[in-house]
């Protein structure tokens, strides 16, 4: 049975509704001005910001002042945290500085590949959920971990497509399919998406949203690339809702073996 295409198809996270299914990161841009234009062109409504990079008490901070909080949900992330304790402290700092209690949880003890630590992530998620945060955890594409996080009350799960910043696309496809199949919270594919076709692929699989940063920030023309990702995400979503035919490896003749039955 095919899902009916809905004109109104919002992404709902923790009861809050968003018109765009593309989340954008703010790292690696050549200037705040380019970043601001890229955000606008992408149509995004959720923008992540690394707490380690911003000065929360400085109104003139180059990133914070470029993100219009009337237009975007500012989603602080705990990038740089190496364990649960550091991530929890960063989240509390953000809330104390007046940010909404939404947090993108990243615990990455290895600073080179930035792969998430499943044990510390789960630990931090439990604490932050208990403290009233809406938690969006960045995880490896591990279906069991995704369920465990859902059980402690995270608002989404955010499995990686391939190592962050690698632009290599959906290398974890098989596992993300299982996560999507089992999830009762939105699945946001985060990290590794290097081209709009990768984003479209994730959406066609049934991901609820994708998060992109490097591919846009370091593109020759980040604004045009942001626009291209917007289209990729929309096309993928529409295809998913329209009901894709299953791919076949061989051409299928009409009943060469069973034709005699008719």
């Amino acid at each position, binding site marked *: 049975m095919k899902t009916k295409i809905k004109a109104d198809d919002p992404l709902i996270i923790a009861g809050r509704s968003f018109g765009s299914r593309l989340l954008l990161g703010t790292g690696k841009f050549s200037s705040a001005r380019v970043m601001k234009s890229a955000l606008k062109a992408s149509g995004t409504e959720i923008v992540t910001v690394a707490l*380690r990079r911003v*000065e929360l008490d400085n109104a003139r901070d180059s990133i914070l002042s470029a993100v219009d909080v009337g237009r975007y949900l500012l989603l602080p992330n705990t990038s740089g945290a190496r364990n649960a304790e*550091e991530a929890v402290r*960063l989240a509390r*700092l953000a809330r104390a500085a007046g940010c909404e209690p939404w947090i993108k949880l990243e615990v990455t*003890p290895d*600073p*080179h590949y930035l792969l998430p630590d499943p044990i510390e992530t789960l630990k931090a998620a439990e604490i932050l959920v208990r403290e009233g945060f809406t938690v969006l955890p960045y995880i490896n594409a591990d279906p069991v971990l995704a369920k465990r996080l859902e059980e402690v009350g995270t608002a989404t799960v955010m499995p990686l497509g391939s190592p962050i910043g690698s632009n290599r696309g959906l290398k974890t496809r098989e596992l993300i399919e299982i996560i999507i199949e089992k999830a009762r919270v939105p699945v946001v594919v985060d990290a590794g998406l290097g081209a709009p076709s990768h984003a479209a692929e994730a959406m066609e699989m049934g991901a609820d949203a994708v998060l992109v940063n490097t591919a846009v920030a370091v593109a020759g023309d980040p604004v045009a690339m942001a626009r291209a990702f917007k289209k990729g995400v929309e096309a993928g979503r529409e295809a998913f809702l329209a009901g894709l035919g299953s791919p076949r490896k061989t051409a299928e003749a009409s009943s060469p073996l069973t034709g005699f039955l008719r």
Partner: protein
Amino acid sequence: MSFYDVIHSYNWNEIQKEIGRRTVEDVERALAARTPGLDDLMSLLSPQAEPFLEQMAQRAHRLTLQRFGRVMGMFAPLYLSNVCTNRCVYCGFNAGNAITRLTLTPEEAGTEGESLRRMGFRTVLLLSGEAPQVITEEYLKRVLERLRPRFSSIGIEMFPMAEKRYRELIGQGVDGLTLFQETYDETSYGEFHPGGRKCDYRWRLEAPERGGAAGFRRLGIGALLGLNDWRVEGFYVALHASHLLKTCWKSQLAVSFPRLRSSAGAYEPRFPVADRHLVQLICALRLFLPDVGFTLSTRELAPLRDCLIPLGITTMSAGSHTEPGGYSRPGKGGAQFEVADGRSPGAVAEALRRTGYEPVWKEWDAASAFA
């Protein structure tokens, strides 16, 4: 197995010969590799790779852009003292040099920190000579108490210490450790460091892994370019980096490229490194170490620094003073080396923006790690 054991399975002269034997075909194979190994690195460091410099630079640029983006981490050195018991033949702080010796009081260090903070810096690197009788535990504790509230990240570049001591410093708010081996050639190391505790090659060589074990978030290594054949030195830096990436996997690693400049002792580098060779070294190491930070100081002239930005550099200092107290009262104490890029931090930031890079002043928030 420590890096001291690793390094003993390689022979300096053999590596030098091996690099010299590399052919154009070896270089082409190295450039075709998706992830070049140590063998490829030797080809990239060889004289035969020189005609491929532009190709190497293009690839180094792409790798750096993808991994680090169009941003440049900014930091400033803060010299606490130029008192030193060592006799490093190339260094302005050599105990035998007649320079004005000066150690900042903790209050003066705080004033220096405040000057740097006002210039925009949130990351500071504390330096001193090797003078444990002056740079005591109590002294550093008092300095850090004054600097911690002013900076989001504090590194040290001092004499090597024991793991236990590093743990204490981390507890007092230090998150980065930089220590250059100067030269990885154990034989000539002794000639360059004839007096003082720095004679101990192994104690210095193993300090970064002691730092990693103690829990520093950032580790910095490097060789002082000009002391020895840069091609061989580059190989050993890469070997050290590979070792640290495995043993200290939680620390962000950075490699620096300090090139010897004139100093009070008027030391002339035995193996001067030309600009094009500095570029070859940076590009070869970037191809081998795509995820490691590369640091460039104000030892280099402004026009060269601006050109090196896209080739792999990820953090740089600006507006530096290498004499203690130089930011609030310039020119009172003797300097470690002559600064070649004398532009203000604002002017360097402007040059970065013109090149299409965003200067980043804050990259870590110590408040999240420091209760």
